[in-house]
């Protein structure tokens, strides 16, 4: 009995210690204050609205939104994005059309319009801000790995 209690204590010890050690190494997104203390929220960042297309980091990346979407309707009743990006409105808006993959349901059948599973644009496409990244971004473009000597200077990520 005494021995098993001792063994339990011995085995719990490293776990507790590891928890304390790893907790210090974990990136602290909410700042240096302990989580028990309420800190003021950082100010909201302004959205980038320069309308300049941003290069994708990899071919399948959903393109990011280079304009503000503040106040845009996105619910069961209305989808403001489609007022410009739907195929039938692209001539007057000069906005890029939603990709053809957005016409397919999950079984690969091509539908007549936006597939319901693609309806909520902001699930994948997001506007950008100039906020300072909370953690360092060490992403490397695959072309940079394959052909490091032929890479142009990178602009905004």
């Amino acid at each position, binding site marked *: 009995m005494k021995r098993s209690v001792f063994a339990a204590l011995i085995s719990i010890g490293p776990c507790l210690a590891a928890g304390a050690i790893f907790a210090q190494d974990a990136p602290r997104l909410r700042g240096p204050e302990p989580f028990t203390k309420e800190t003021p929220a950082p100010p909201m960042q302004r959205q980038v*609205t320069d*309308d300049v297309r941003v290069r994708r980091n990899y071919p399948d990346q959903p393109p990011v939104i280079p304009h503000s979407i503040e*106040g845009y309707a996105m619910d069961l*009743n*209305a989808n*403001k994005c489609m*007022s410009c990006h*739907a195929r039938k409105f692209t001539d*007057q*808006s000069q906005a890029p059309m939603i990709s053809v993959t957005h016409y397919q349901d999950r079984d690969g059948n091509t539908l007549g319009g936006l597939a319901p599973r693609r309806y909520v644009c902001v699930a994948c496409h997001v506007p950008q801000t100039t906020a300072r990244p909370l953690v360092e971004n060490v992403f490397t473009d695959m072309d940079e790995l394959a052909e490091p000597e032929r890479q142009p200077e990178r602009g905004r990520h």
Partner: protein
Amino acid sequence: MAAGISRAWGWFRGNRWVQTALSPPTYLSLAFLTLGGFVAGVIFWGGFNTALEITNTEKFCTSCHEMEANVFEELKGTVHFTNRSGVRATCPDCHVPHEWTNKIARKMQASKEVWGHIFGSIDTREKFLALRKHLAEREWERMKANDSLECRNCHSSESMDLAKQNPRAASAHEQFLFTGQRTCIDCHKGIAHRLPDMSGVPGWQ
């Protein structure tokens, strides 16, 4: 026909009240009648306009829970309620014409809303949502008909500096607004309240 008119006229002139009204005053002085009429006119007219202005305040609009719980609550998150400069639009700024004749016409139409309040046509959120498209369409139609007059009370196209607008907004305004092809409400729907089901509305998918 002629006999009928003459009989009606005879009855009218023979009426005791009409005779009193048309005969000269016996006891009251001319000064009393003119000045008294003037003062009474001021009181009636002032009272009428004061009452009219009271019904033209946000406080009055949101005193009905239909407005307070639905549309006013939705307005609060939008740029027409809270923004960087602190200038905001109240209900009548957008929903009641500012010019007197049109204002009275709109107020007369709005008596239907009193009826709706008394009989509870949208007294629950469900009833409101069910009628929302109809209600929204009425407002869109009204604003289209008057060339978005209530928008233009604040947003004048002459004072718009396209250079300070986002290039997309500038080109859209240049192409559609300045040429008169479209009016504000054609593109800017649902900017102050949530939208109804937009299927079938031009410009919406």
